[in-house]
C-alpha cells in the first residue's frame, strides 16, 4: 500500500515538474489513440457487413411489375425441385414495403412517397454451393419477367477487396502511429530519468532496489496512457452515435456497432487496456536503456 502511494507520489512529481511536456504528450497520445480506435471500428464494421452479406440469400431476383404472383410462385416451385438449391423465399410487394418501413421507421420523409406498388416483388435464392449461384444468376438474366438480378457474391467480392485495401492502408498508418508513440514515450521517460538523476543516484546509494527506482518511471508512461485513453474514448463515444445514424441510412439491417450502453465500457476498456500495456512495455524498455540500476 505504501509502495503504491509512493509510486503515485513520484509519478505526480515527474509529471508536474514538466507540466507542458505532459500536456503535449497527452494530446498527441489522445490523437494517436483516436486514430487507432477509428481503424479498429472501421475494421469491425466492415467485417460485420461482410459476414452479414455472406449469410444473406446469395441471389436476389427482382420481378417486373406486371408479373403476377402466380407466375412467381410457379418459378419458385420449379427452383425448389433443384436439389442444388438450398432455399427460395418469396418476398411480395407488401412484404417488401413492410421491410422498407421497418428499416426507415425514424425517417418519415423517406416513407412519404413510397407505396407497396413501387417496390418490386423478389425471390431470395440461396444455393448449397456458392459456385452454383452464378448459374442461377445467368439463368434469370434473360428471363422475360425479371427486372434485375442482384448477385450478392459480386458485392461481397467488391467489398472484400475494398476492405482489404482499407485494412492495408490502416495497417501501415497504424504502424507509423505505433512508431511515433514509441518514440514519444521513450523521449518522455528518458527525459524524466535525466531530470531526476540526482534522486536516482541517491536512491541507489542508500540501497533502493532496481524495481523500487524503476516503477515510478514506468508508471509515468502508464498514467499518460490512462489519461489519453480516457480522452480519446470520451471523444469517440460522443462522435460514434452521429456516425451510426449516418451509416443507418445505408445499411440499416446490419448492426454495425454494439448497443449504446456497452459502448463506453467497450471503447474505454479496450483503448485503456491496449494503451496501458503498450506504454508499460515501452517505458520498461526505456528504463532498461537509461536507468543504471
Amino acid at each position, binding site marked *: 500500500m505504501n509502495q503504491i502511494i*509512493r509510486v503515485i507520489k513520484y509519478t505526480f512529481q515527474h509529471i508536474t515538474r514538466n507540466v507542458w511536456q505532459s500536456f503535449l504528450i497527452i494530446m498527441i497520445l489522445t490523437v494517436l489513440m483516436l486514430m487507432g480506435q477509428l481503424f479498429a471500428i472501421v475494421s469491425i464494421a466492415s467485417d460485420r457487413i461482410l459476414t452479414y452479406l455472406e449469410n444473406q440469400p446469395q441471389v436476389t431476383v427482382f420481378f417486373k411489375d406486371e408479373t403476377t404472383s402466380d407466375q412467381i410462385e410457379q418459378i419458385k416451385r420449379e427452383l425448389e425441385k433443384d436439389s442444388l438449391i438450398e432455399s427460395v423465399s418469396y418476398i411480395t410487394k407488401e412484404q417488401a414495403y413492410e421491410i422498407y418501413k421497418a428499416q426507415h421507421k425514424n425517417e418519415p420523409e423517406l416513407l412519404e412517397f413510397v407505396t407497396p406498388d413501387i417496390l418490386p416483388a423478389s425471390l431470395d435464392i440461396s444455393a448449397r454451393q456458392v459456385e452454383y449461384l452464378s448459374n442461377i444468376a445467368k439463368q434469370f438474366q434473360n428471363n422475360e419477367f425479371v427486372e434485375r438480378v442482384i448477385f450478392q457474391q459480386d458485392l461481397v467480392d467488391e467489398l472484400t477487396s475494398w476492405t482489404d485495401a482499407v485494412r492495408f492502408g490502416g495497417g501501415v498508418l497504424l504502424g507509423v502511429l505505433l512508431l511515433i508513440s514509441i518514440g514519444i514515450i521513450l523521449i518522455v521517460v528518458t527525459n524524466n530519468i535525466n531530470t531526476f538523476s540526482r534522486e536516482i543516484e*541517491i*536512491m*541507489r*546509494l*542508500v*540501497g*533502493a532496489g*532496481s524495481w*523500487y527506482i524503476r516503477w515510478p518511471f514506468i508508471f509515468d508512461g502508464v498514467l499518460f496512457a490512462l489519461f489519453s485513453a480516457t480522452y480519446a474514448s470520451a471523444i469517440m463515444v460522443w462522435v460514434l452515435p452521429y456516425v451510426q445514424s449516418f451509416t443507418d441510412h445505408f445499411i440499416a439491417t446490419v448492426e454495425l456497432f454494439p448497443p449504446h450502453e456497452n459502448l463506453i465500457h467497450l471503447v474505454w476498456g479496450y483503448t485503456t487496456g491496449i494503451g496501458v500495456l503498450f506504454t508499460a512495455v515501452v517505458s520498461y524498455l526505456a528504463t532498461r536503456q537509461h536507468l543504471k540500476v
Partner: protein
Amino acid sequence: MIKFDSVSKWYKRSGVTAFEEVSLQINQGDFVFLIGPSGAGKTTLLKFLIREDIPSEGDIWFKDDNIVRLPRRKIPHLRRQIGMVFQDFKLLRQQTVFENIAFALEVVGKKPSEVKEIVPYLLDRVGLLHRERAFPQELSTGEQQRVAIARALATEPEVLLADEPTGNLDSQNTKQIVDLLKQINEWGTTVIMATHDEALVKRTKGRVVVIKDGRLTEQR
C-alpha cells in the same frame, strides 16, 4: 569484517594501474583513516565496498559475502549495511533537511509514522535538530555534510564510509565532522574515512592506512 584479498585495478584504455595486489583487513569497530595524495585511489577503494566499482582482480569480503561476486539483486542489501558520504554531499536541493533524510528512510521501506520519529532522532545525533526545515543551500557546508551523514545513518549501517568529508571545510567545521564520526564510531559503527589532510590524521586517534603508488601500507 572487511577483507581485501590481493585486489588489483587497472584501466585498460589508459594503461593506468591504480592498485596492485593490495590486501587489507578491517575489523568491526575500527576507525580507519585512508590517506594518500589526490589520485591515489582512495575514492576507488571506497567505491569497491559499495559495489559502485569493481576490481580487475582479487576478492573483497564483507562478512561472508564476496562483494566482487555479489549478484546484482543483493547490491541494495549491501548498501544498506555499508553507508557512504561524499565530498559533494549529494543532497536534494529542492528538499528540506527533513525531507532529504525522510527520502532515504522511505527507500528502506519505513512507514510515514516511523519516518516522523526517526528523522528527528537522526538529526539529533548529528546536532541539527533545529535545522530540519532549512534547505541545504541555507546551511553551512559543515552542516550540509552532517545532513549527509545523518542520511547515511538512516539505514543503520554497520560500516560508514566517508570520502573526504572535510575536503571543503574550514578547520573548525573539520574538527566537528571528525568528532562526529568518532562519536558514531564509539556508538558501534565501523568508520573508514578517506582524506589527504595529513595534519588532521596526526592529531586524531585511529588506524592509518596509506595508499601510494598502488600499494597500501599500515602506518599506525
